[in-house]
């Protein structure tokens, strides 16, 4: 008799626990796991205009990995990541430190105006920049007319990635600045007082106190930026209307997945691109996090 009670006791809490977990588990399964499972499922099939749906195994993955267009897109986002992200994070850090230094006049105004672009929807911002980039009717033309220069529109194939980088930087400097600034506000002022007593200069305070204190925020911002770079879509997709030859249908992996899916009706290939990019992003983000955290523990 005692043994049955014991079993019931051991079993009952387990069921109750599942009940508490259920609201989260169900939502998690529906909105996180199910789409991934569905993408995996799609990636194993090919839907043909003639012949319909066929199981093709890992064929879609092999074809994507063997396609120069995929690697061209990956190359673009990696280049974007290596150039744009450091510039953007450096600028964000600079502004955050400047505001935090307390020596800036009108700090609240600067903070708001740097952050404001983030509040503009990406689509609107890109349309606006697209117009400014125009060398026939846009700002570039006005600029050329006033100064007598002959600057070409940055929407040419060689410069379009930089033009997009400029838009993204403009949009996200404020966002990252806020992350850094919030982290800087949590540094106890006693540390600064101690540094002052020790005779440390402003630069020394930054390198010895502020930067180490916000390392976590730097890692987070970097990871967000890596993910953002790999998912580059809005800006090039909108600018394609203005520069259809500079921005190809495989300019970034996301654009290519979109084109494969909605112009080519090749959902299987599109799903394979999405999964491959998801894995690549996760691996790189994980490596960055690993490195960031290891230093923090030291």
């Amino acid at each position, binding site marked *: 008799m005692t043994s049955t009670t014991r079993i019931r006791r051991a079993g009952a809490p387990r069921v109750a626990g599942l009940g508490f977990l259920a609201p989260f588990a169900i939502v998690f399964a529906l909105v996180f796991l199910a789409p991934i499972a569905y993408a995996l499922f799609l990636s194993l099939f*090919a839907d*043909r*205009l*003639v*012949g319909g749906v066929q199981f093709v195994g890992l064929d879609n993955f092999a074809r994507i990995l063997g396609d120069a267009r995929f690697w061209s897109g990956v190359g673009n986002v990696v280049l974007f990541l290596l150039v744009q992200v450091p510039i953007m994070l450096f600028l964000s850090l600079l502004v955050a430190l400047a505001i935090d230094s307390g020596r800036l006049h009108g700090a609240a105004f600067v903070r708001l105006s740097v952050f404001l672009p983030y509040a503009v929807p990406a689509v609107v911002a890109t349309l606006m920049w697209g*117009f400014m980039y*125009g060398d*026939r*009717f*846009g700002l570039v033309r006005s600029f050329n007319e006033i100064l007598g220069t002959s600057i070409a529109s940055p929407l*040419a*194939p060689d410069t379009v990635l930089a033009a997009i980088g400029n838009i993204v930087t403009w949009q996200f400097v404020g966002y990252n600045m806020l992350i850094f600034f919030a982290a800087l506000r949590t540094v106890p002022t006693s540390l600064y007082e101690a540094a002052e007593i020790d005779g440390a200069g402003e630069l020394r305070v930054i390198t010895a106190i502020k930067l180490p204190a916000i390392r976590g925020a730097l890692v987070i911002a970097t990871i967000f930026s890596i993910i953002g770079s790999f998912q580059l879509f809005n800006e090039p997709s909108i600018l394609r*209307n*203005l*520069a*259809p*030859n*500079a921005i*190809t*249908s*495989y300019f970034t992996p996301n654009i290519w997945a979109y*084109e494969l*899916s*909605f*112009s*080519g*009706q*090749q*959902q299987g290939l599109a799903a394979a691109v999405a999964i491959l990019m998801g894995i690549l992003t996760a691996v790189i983000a994980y490596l960055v996090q690993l490195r960031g955290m290891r230093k923090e523990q030291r």
Partner: protein
Amino acid sequence: MKHHHSTALRAGAIAGASLIALAGCSAGTQDPDAAAEAGGTLTVWAWEPTLEAVVEAYEAENEGVDIELVNAGTGNDQYTALQNAIQAGSGVPDIAQIEYFAVPQFAIADSLADISELGAADLDGTFAPGPWSAVSQGDAIVGMPMDSGPMAMFYNAEVFERLGVAVPETWEDYLQAARDLRAADPSVSITNDTGDAGLATSLMWQSGAEPFTVDGTTVGIDLEGDAARYAEIWQPMLDEDLFAPVSSWSDEWFAGMNDGTIASITTGAWMPANLESGAPDAAGDWRVAPMPQWEDGGAASAENGGSSLAVTAASEQAALAYDFLEYATTGDGVQLRLDAGAFPATTADLESQEFLDVEFEYFGGQQANQVFAESSANVVDGWSYLPYQVYANSIFNDTVGQAYVGDTTIVDGLAAWQEQIDAYGQEQGFTIE
């Protein structure tokens, strides 16, 4: 105009009958007139500006019907959105504007409803043969021709006159005129182009080339022979920077036509309404001439664009949708659209004296329909589009478009285009010849 009467008579007869029928069935009716009587809400995706007046008039006549006219983008943008909605299985409009070149791709994927049973089967002969064959897919009729796009050259006569350049009659003249215009005023380009698959295929069509041949699921593709002829004019235009590097339908495009820096466009006869709304300041300056020719004294023409209105397979109100379609494409809606500058696909209108005599205020009183009607009669026979033209067009700029940014030539670009649409066709299960 005869069919208007018969439609009205039949509508009256069926409306009477439907009063009896209504007792038995409410939703899901198969009778368009009864459906209009019963009312409902329709969503229409179209970018054609003249449809607004049609929707208003239809709603006024059918009080129970509420039509939401949505501009979901022009051309490919809308097709992408539409395919997106069809894939997702929600948000699909009841009616969509689909250009003739894109009809086969939607039809082959069973995305469009067969409307022959709803009354379209009786309409043979109502429409010009080109548009009608474009919406007839085998035994099914998957759309109603809304307009047609026999091509013409729209040009800003004031600019040509001011710069002392004659209006070109052949493509060779056209190239020379492009040079002369630019020499006379460096800010002026004879036209814009950033690589437009629709224009390129229409130029091939006019030149007599047949790059795409379709026989069931067997597709022939040849972009390296006759089809490349347009490059004889287009390549020097590119080499000498004579195009305005502005994409059609962009704000810059309308601005350029408005201020005279884009001096002409060669496009379909549906253009006037767009010029009126997009380049209002240039009213009175523009005129219409026949498309430049490949042979001296020739009269060859091609179609460019032109759209059908199709009922989607996902629509739950096919009968009501068809009633609106009938009104817009064969009923009173046609005249409303013609008044607003659209170009008809209905034979009765194409041949009517009233239509031919219309004086376009925007074109300084020119009877432009005569140019268009002649173009319509001279469209070269034998052209067909790929059954996956939407996809092919979506990669046109990846290949041929690269010639516009200096990396390759149009001829090489065409070869690359052919290679990619060959590969896609095979992947999709077509037999490529």
